[in-house]
């Protein structure tokens, strides 16, 4: 019995255990399934993540390319700006090209460059720049340029920029690459307005592909160089012209100085001659005049009227000759600085009034109205009274001489620019314009009707000029033919 119970209990226990195991197995299985599902989910997520990574990489590479392109553009622009600044301040042709450096080229995305200008006289391309080339390579390029000279001249003539992009499908690209040892390149004409024209070539290796922007940069560079060449040439031209001008001015100045020296020597000789001759003339003239006077006064006996008349003529002409000789002596003395002007303060108002009194008799004879326009308050002038009286008498005498009957003479005194100005204005016959320039010359007489009848030495105005200038003054004349003349002179005033 007990055994049976025991067996039953064992069975029950076994069954319970089996059931537990079954439950555990089922639970485990459930967990495995759940984990497997999680692994699958994880794998899916990983795959999805990988797909996202691909998107990220593709976007990143596109962004990097854009960034690189932008960087390149910016760097290129900075390089162009730097170059532009350097080139624009250069005024010598060769120096313009020397401003282009390897660092500029690298910033523009290139590694070598050369530039040539066509020299029409020698009929060859002359190298002005080479960077990244050995000298033998440049020799090779020069030889190639000579061979294909028409092609390059045509390129310059058409002002066309070529590049390995624009020439991609043409044979020229390959030839040019070979000639200039560069896979990628831009060649752009240098076109100054005047003088030798040419081109600039910039190149890079195969691993530096070109973009459209590169071509534009090189066109800008070529234009910049062209502009700078124009400036340099214009500067050189202007500079040369200035140098020539300076040289000519110097030569002329030297010539003029020499001429002036000669004139001074001649003038001195003339003055010395006149002085000597005048002195020599005065002595016999005095004798002639003396003897004539004795004869006229009939101290040596009565004379027939015809003889007396002739003697009076001799006497009159002798007087004129004496005057002339005296004037000449005065002029030569002033010129030689031998006449000492006794400059003392003078009342010009009173001085001119006394001269006007003297001349008024002659005016009355010709019914000429003599007017004065003299302000009450006038500063005194530094003058030699007797000399200025001579000036005024001379000018007023001329005015009376050339003013017709019932005419008018005005003496006008004013203060101008720190000086006292005296005008003697008449309503006389005036002078032709050509006479104005020469009126103060010695022995010059205006060719007019009055002068033909009235005698004169032609020395009066010359003497007047010398006197005024010896006073540090200035004299001039304005005149209208048929209406009258105005002689003006200035004298320094006393402050």
């Amino acid at each position, binding site marked *: 019995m007990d055994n049976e119970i025991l067996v039953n209990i064992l069975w029950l226990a076994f069954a319970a255990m089996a059931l537990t195991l079954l439950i555990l197995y089922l639970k485990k299985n459930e967990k495995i399934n759940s984990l497997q599902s999680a692994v699958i989910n994880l794998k899916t997520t990983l795959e999805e993540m*990988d797909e996202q990574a691909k998107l990220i990489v593709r976007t990143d*590479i596109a962004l*990097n390319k854009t960034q690189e392109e932008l960087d390149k553009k910016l760097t290129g622009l900075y390089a162009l700006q730097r170059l532009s600044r350097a080139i624009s301040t250069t005024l010598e042709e060769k120096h313009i090209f020397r401003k282009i450096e390897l660092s500029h080229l690298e910033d523009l995305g290139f590694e070598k460059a050369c530039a040539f200008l066509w020299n029409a006289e020698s009929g060859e391309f002359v190298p002005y720049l080479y960077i990244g080339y050995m000298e033998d390579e440049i020799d090779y390029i020069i030889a190639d340029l000579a061979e294909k000279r028409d092609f390059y001249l045509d390129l310059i003539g058409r002002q066309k920029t070529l590049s390995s992009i624009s020439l991609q499908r043409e044979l020229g690209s390959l030839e040019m690459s070979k000639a200039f040892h560069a896979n990628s390149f831009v060649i752009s004409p240098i076109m100054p307005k005047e003088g030798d024209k040419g081109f600039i070539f910039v190149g890079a290796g195969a691993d530096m592909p070109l973009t459209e922007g590169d071509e534009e940069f090189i066109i800008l560079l070529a234009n910049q160089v062209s502009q700078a060449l124009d400036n340099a040439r214009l500067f050189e031209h202007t500079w040369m012209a200035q140098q020539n001008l300076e040289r000519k001015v110097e030569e002329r100045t030297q010539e003029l100085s020499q001429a002036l020296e000669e004139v001074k020597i001649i003038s001195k000789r003339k003055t010395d001659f006149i002085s000597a001759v005048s002195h020599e003339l005065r002595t016999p003239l005095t004798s002639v005049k003396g003897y004539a006077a004795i004869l006229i006064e009939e101290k040596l006996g009565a004379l027939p009227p015809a003889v007396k008349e002739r003697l009076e003529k001799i006497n009159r002409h002798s007087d004129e000759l004496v005057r002339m000789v005296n004037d000449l002596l005065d002029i030569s003395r002033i010129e030689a600085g031998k006449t000492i002007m006794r400059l003392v303060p003078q009342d010009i108002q009173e001085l001119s009034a006394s001269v006007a009194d003297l001349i008024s008799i002659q005016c009355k004879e010709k019914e000429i109205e003599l007017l004065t326009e003299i302000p009450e308050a006038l500063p005194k002038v530094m003058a030699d009274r007797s000399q200025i009286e001579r000036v005024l008498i001379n000018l007023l005498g001329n005015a009376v001489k050339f003013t017709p009957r019932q005419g008018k003479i005005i003496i006008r005194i004013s203060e101008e620019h720190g000086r006292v100005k005296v005008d003697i204005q008449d309503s006389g016959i005036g002078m032709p314009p050509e006479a104005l320039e020469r009126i103060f010359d010695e022995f010059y007489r205006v060719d007019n009707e009055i002068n033909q009848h009235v005698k004169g030495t032609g020395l009066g105005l010359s003497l007047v000029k010398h006197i005024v200038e010896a006073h540090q003054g200035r004299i001039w004349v304005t005149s209208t033919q048929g209406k009258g003349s105005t002689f003006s002179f200035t004298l320094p005033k006393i402050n």
Partner: protein
Amino acid sequence: MSIQAGLGISTDKDSLKAVREAALQARQRLDGNASPNVAIVFSSIEFAHLTMLKTISSMFGHIDVLGCSTTAVLCNQGVFRHAVAVLLLNMSPDTYYTTGSITDIKYKTAIKAGEEFGEKLLAGLKSARRDLGIIFSDGLIDKSSNLIYGMQERLGTSFPVVGALAMDNLRYSKTFVYYNQSVESDAACGLILGGGVNFGLGIRHGWKPLGKPRYITRASGNIAYEIDDIPAATVYEDYLDCDIKELRLELRRIGTFYPIGIYLQGEEEYLLRNITDIGEDGSLILQGNIPENSQIRLMIGTKETCFTAAEQAVHEAKEALSVKTGACPRIKFALVFDSISRYMLLGRDAEKEVEAVKRAVGPGVPVIGLYTYGEQGPLKSIDYHGKVYLHNQTISVLLVGE
């Protein structure tokens, strides 16, 4: 132990004038009357002439000259495409240093040349404790990772070496290494410092993983044949939605901007590998070695991540420098090896990286550097015991302090 440093730079077009100007500046900035023992020279390719090195020798007498060509020089004044920079170092008598070089790497194979190079450097140092190696090597040698492996055979795997792969003007045709009075391609030169030099090193790139993890299922040396059992190039064709022909045309851009990142346990950043070529069989030829079964990701970088990485690199270097004393000592000079990929990505903003370094090291500290085709430097995590690897896309900042 102390090192004095003076830096000079010139952009004069006349190479002789340029090197003279740079060297004179460096001399003037060297403290006191200290005479230089070592000159580190970086120059753009047009200055890579023997006359440049002879000028330095003639100016300073016996001096060890090391350096290489590059596409652009970095210094306190900025980034210069056409320049020569000279850093003159005066080592106090208790500072041990030795220099050496190796040529004909191709003929000897990179690994054998690396071993020989390591031996030469060790021989010069004798028994002194060695602290740090600085090397410059031709940037266009095949399997350049092997040069490092070879050196490690002699110098030990955990010996810290920082290095730069020389550059040309991005033509990938010929690069030059400067050593004393020789300008060589297919060569490497280096300097080992010892006697307790206090230095800090930071290496970062800032590239981030993108897409799902994949595995290198077949590889040998620097060639990845298959990724996830399909030709390796197919992955790139798929990601970029282009065929292999287009891929080849855009290889330089793609290989630089989207390199392969190898996952390294414990490292904060993936180890990057630039693609230098695509095989006929669809394999990817990489600049450095890639182990089979590596977990890899496609990597992507942005300007922002680049700047952050530069800041992190110099920060790391400063922290490392502070370990000894607990506070950052006076920095004597900073040496920066910056990947050309970063220059290409940053474009006009490249100078900002230099600014970040200058800000971190403080005013008056000479900063000299160059752009490289690849950088060598140790990994940081304990798992790799500071083993030196070839990196791509990184900015390596070496700070030498008091």
